[in-house]
């Protein structure tokens, strides 16, 4: 018997054959370093991974407003108060910008927010640590934004165009935040003994959580392989973590502070600052929702959402009335 000619094959297998061809073409574009745009065909897994990464990033910006917002009302000078308000405002802007970028992948921002509020979406674990002193506003800007920059500088070369462009823009602002944070740290480090103690304590609390921001070790990172192949991620978590430590330790030394790691040592051969073992049990607990502030952060977002319900309803009702008036006038 003659095999069926292609045009007579069943619809499903023809579709499958087309997908194989499309995926091969897609892989070739990735290999050639082309940028993937919203209207281009992409494998479903690629779309899903990007939605996951981008929405986590957007959620992180929005939840990240809370630990820093916690100190706006206590900022010790008007200049610091203004720069902190501006920084938190920037984070809101980044969140909005990345939510919009995620919508180019065919999801709705409201659904993403819903996932954050019902606890099914993840966000950066660092924001589940409390901010306990003014020095945390410096250390977060320096270490947390610094770690984010190391991540995002690489993400600016990611294969998905809208995400890459968002990262270029966001990185510029994050660099500004980092400089501002480091300046706060440097000021405190050369301040009174109480200020010095305050900033050292803050570094002690945020050092390890900052290293955890790069995610699980390469030996235990479930999504990394696929993301690397598609050039969504261009460096591994451990490579980025090492890069961050190498960049940061000289800055720590420059202001006369220390990091809470007795195993830290410079390796002259590799030119790396080798650091001690990360407490992955702590990381896993925080990711699972059991960090110091997970519940408070989600509760705060939920309260903002619930308390704003009547406001959103009013805006919708008003817009409908306006539209109706326009129709009647026409």
């Amino acid at each position, binding site marked *: 018997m003659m095999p069926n000619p292609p045009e007579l094959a069943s619809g499903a297998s023809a579709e499958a054959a087309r997908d194989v061809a499309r995926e091969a073409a897609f892989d070739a574009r990735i290999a050639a370093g082309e940028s993937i745009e919203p209207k281009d065909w992409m494998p479903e897994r690629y779309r899903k991974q990007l939605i996951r990464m981008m929405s986590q990033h957007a959620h992180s910006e929005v939840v990240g407003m809370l630990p820093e917002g916690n100190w*706006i009302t206590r900022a*010790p*000078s008007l200049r610091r*108060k203004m720069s902190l308000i501006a920084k938190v405002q920037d984070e809101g802007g980044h969140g909005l910008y990345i939510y919009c970028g995620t919508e180019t992948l065919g999801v709705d921002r409201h659904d993403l927010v819903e996932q954050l509020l019902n606890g099914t979406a993840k966000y950066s674990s660092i924001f589940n640590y409390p901010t306990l002193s*003014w020095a945390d506003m410096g250390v977060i800007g320096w270490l947390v934004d610094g770690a984010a920059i190391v991540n995002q500088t690489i993400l600016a070369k990611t294969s998905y165009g809208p995400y890459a462009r968002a990262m270029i823009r966001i990185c510029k602002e994050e660099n500004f935040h980092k400089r501002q944070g480091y300046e706060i740290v440097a000021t*405190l480090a050369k301040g009174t003994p109480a200020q010095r103690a305050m900033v050292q304590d803050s570094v002690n609390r945020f050092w390890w959580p900052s290293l955890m921001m790069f995610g699980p070790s390469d030996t235990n990172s479930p999504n990394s392989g696929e993301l690397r192949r598609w050039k969504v991620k261009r460096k591994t978590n451990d490579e980025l973590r090492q890069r961050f430590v190498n960049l940061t330790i000289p800055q720590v030394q420059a202001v006369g502070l220390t990091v809470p790691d007795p195993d830290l040592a410079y390796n002259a051969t590799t030119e790396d600052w080798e650091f001690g073992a990360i407490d992955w049990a702590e990381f896993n607990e925080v990711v699972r929702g059991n960090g110091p502030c997970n519940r408070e952060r989600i509760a705060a977002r939920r309260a903002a959402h619930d308390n704003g319900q009547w406001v959103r309803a009013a805006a919708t009702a008003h817009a409908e009335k306006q539209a109706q008036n326009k129709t009647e006038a026409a």
Partner: protein
Amino acid sequence: MFEFLVRLGDDRLVIGHRMAEWCGHGPILEEDIALANIALDYTGQASALLALAGDMEGKGRSDDALAYFRDETQFRNALITELPIGDFGFTIVRQFLFDCHSVLLWEALAACGHATLAGIAAKAIKEDTYHLRHSSEWMRKLGDGTAESHARVQASLDTLWRYTGELFEHDAVDDAVAALGIVVPHDTRAARWRSLVDGVLREATLVVPASPGPMVTGGRRGRHTEHLGHMLAEMQIVARSHPGASW
């Protein structure tokens, strides 16, 4: 002149602080950003005004010294600015009533005889015109939105109305600065304010409370509500815990 500038500065310092309390807790992300932006503008205006006040006083007090190292009885802000934020509608109504006042005030001061103050006014009027557009838009949305939103903002308006008279009081401080070429015509300003407010309230289907009770006053003399002390306790805690420290 010092007293006059401190009044202007404290109004904006306090209302900016209240506005900043919304950061991260707004009804939609766009409003988190907008409210933070407005808080930033008002805090910036406060910083410029208090710095100028310190210069005029000539005792070496900076804007920070004035903001962080005065007690509540030394604050000169109008009472309306210090009330707690309430719900989003309360914040918007307060903002709207204050913005209308502020825009008209800057209009007068932009043409005043004091160059530095006129410069501050010229910059601030642009900011406050935007703030007024923002608060007016929300007045319309909330007033002419749902039955619930209408009831909420009308109740806020009823509460806040009694605090508006203080914004147009005239006293010896105004006479003193008038001699320096700084004239704020409170009477005509009050009338213009009222017509600005009435215009938006009409569109928002809201009404001025029929019997709001007597106007509340005292802020310009340091007689505040119980709320300001709590606000300052929070605002000043870090600065006051480390006297002499730089930040």
